[in-house]
């Protein structure tokens, strides 16, 4: 069933200039070209050259329909997964970026929601995006949030927190909230995310427009600062109810979450706050209230 490879290759339209060149095989490409461009019906002597030519055009037009469907579906899928990037970019530029990515990384997964994992890294290689250096970090946040929102659910066990009063902390560990993870960013991704999603309505009131301009000025200042004095900030991401969320966190907090994600004991996790009892207490309350922690469990004995 060689035609299946030929047809899919034709739909992906992998040409020599495309970045996915490594996926191409010159021999197969030539074979396809000969099928499509030379003489689909030459074996049949009754076909005139005009008929052949017409059929070739028809074939190319038909392949274009499939190619167009693939591209439109891909752009649509990427605009959903990367909703913040989509909101921050000019729509035509986003289409061009998506098209370049679709050519570079043909779809291999079944579900479009699983497509696009490497867009953040890919953006770093696009010269035209250097004027918006924060976009790859936003793309990374978008991808993580999407995965978190699709992650397996886990029940919040409020009663389990009473173990903190009844058992030695060395024998307990935190069960992280759904999708809990850490990353870091150089640019003000939280402010950019809010800017992208707070003012999505095209018909903003005057006061909303003023607020938007104020936010934009603030964000531009933060971006300039990040470029002048690069400092990475820790970010924690997780799911609360159905929504993927993220926020900046300080060093003690990020170390505590990192320790939690390593399945360390509650006492190890809390030790990152040192003598700051009120800070530790505040972190614990907020982590429970926001579902960054969903239960306390008794640690398995190590052998």
């Amino acid at each position: 069933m060689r035609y299946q490879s030929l047809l899919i290759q034709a739909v992906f339209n992998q040409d020599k200039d495309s970045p996915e060149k490594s996926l191409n095989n010159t021999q197969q490409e030539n074979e396809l070209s000969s099928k499509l461009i030379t003489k689909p019906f030459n074996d049949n002597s009754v076909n005139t050259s005009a008929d052949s030519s017409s059929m070739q055009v028809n074939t190319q037009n038909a392949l274009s329909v499939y190619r167009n469907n693939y591209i439109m579906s891909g752009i649509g899928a990427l605009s959903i997964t990367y909703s913040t990037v989509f909101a921050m970019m000019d729509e035509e530029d986003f289409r061009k970026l998506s098209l370049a990515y679709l050519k570079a990384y043909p779809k291999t997964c079944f579900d479009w929601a699983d497509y696009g994992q490497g867009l953040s890294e890919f953006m770093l290689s696009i010269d035209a995006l250097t004027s918006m250096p924060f976009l790859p970090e936003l793309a990374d946040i978008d991808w993580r949030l999407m995965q978190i929102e699709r992650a397996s659910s886990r029940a919040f066990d409020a009663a389990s927190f009473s173990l903190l009063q009844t058992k030695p902390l060395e024998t307990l560990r935190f069960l992280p909230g759904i999708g809990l993870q850490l990353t870091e960013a150089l640019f003000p991704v939280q402010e950019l995310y809010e800017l992208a999603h707070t003012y999505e309505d095209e018909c903003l009131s005057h006061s909303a427009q003023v607020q938007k301009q104020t936010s934009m000025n603030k964000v531009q200042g933060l971006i300039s600062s990040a470029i002048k004095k690069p400092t990475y900030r820790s970010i924690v991401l997780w799911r609360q109810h159905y929504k993927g969320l993220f926020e900046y966190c300080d060093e003690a907090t990020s170390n505590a979450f990192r320790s939690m994600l390593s399945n360390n004991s509650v006492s190890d996790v809390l030790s990152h706050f040192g003598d700051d009892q009120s800070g530790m207490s505040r972190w614990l309350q907020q982590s429970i209230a926001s579902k960054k922690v969903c239960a306390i469990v008794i640690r398995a004995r190590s052998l």
Partner: protein
Amino acid sequence: MNPFSVTEQPNSLVGVGLRHPHYAQALSDNPINTHIDFVELHAENFFAKGGIALELLQDAAQKYDISIHGTSLGLGSNMALPCDTLAQFAHVVNVSNAKWVSEHLCFNRALVNGHVLHSGDLLPLAYNQASLRVLATNIAQVQDKLKRPILIENLSSYISVSQIDPMQADEMSEFAFLIALCQQAGCGLLLDLNNLIVNALNQQQTNVVDYVYENIKQIPAHLVGEIHLAGFSDNKVNGFIVDDHASAVSPQCWELYTRAKALFGNAATLIEWDNKLPTWEVLVGEAQKARF
């Protein structure tokens, strides 16, 4: 008796495709929702391991009978389905307690230079014995997993395989192929009338409704478990009418449906409208037109 029908009533069940913008209204107490017998959901929209999608699936299943429609399995692909994808599909079917399960007569994956690429679209098959064997094997894989028969939907296509590879000429008609497939695989048919009309129009058939009707008359009534009705946009793409599911059911489709009902009386009927969605009320109104 039709083994793929869930009713033996003379009036078939009528449903609509339920898409994201309509979730809230479809799950509300709006009285018009009682006009809907079932909703069709695309399986892939619920492939997530958790989160709001699965909750919505459960909510929809509590309110309506469910038809789960796969769009990505590509059962004509010359390779087995990955176990994890099949497990995701089966999970959606089981969670929703689906009354109908369907996929398409197509392929979408092939090995290209060592990589299995997925077209993201429904690509046509050659109507020959080799395709029959592959389809029957892959359908059996799905049916074994689900422990139930599925329905296979006829395709709208813009190219014949012989245009790509002249060595792959069709050995039988589309309808003979569909009937043979049902016999070999033990599956049923989801007869998409709009796809047949779109194909006939793209083939420049003169009397489209008569032409399609003469063809579907060949299909034994007991094989058809579900019928899709849809429209198509007037704007051609590269000279082709595209099955874009972006319009109200076309007049040709209604005319053909009237005649098809006499052939496949108790098959469930679904209004398929996926793009440029109308209001929920308009969509439900389309479904009401299918009751006669």
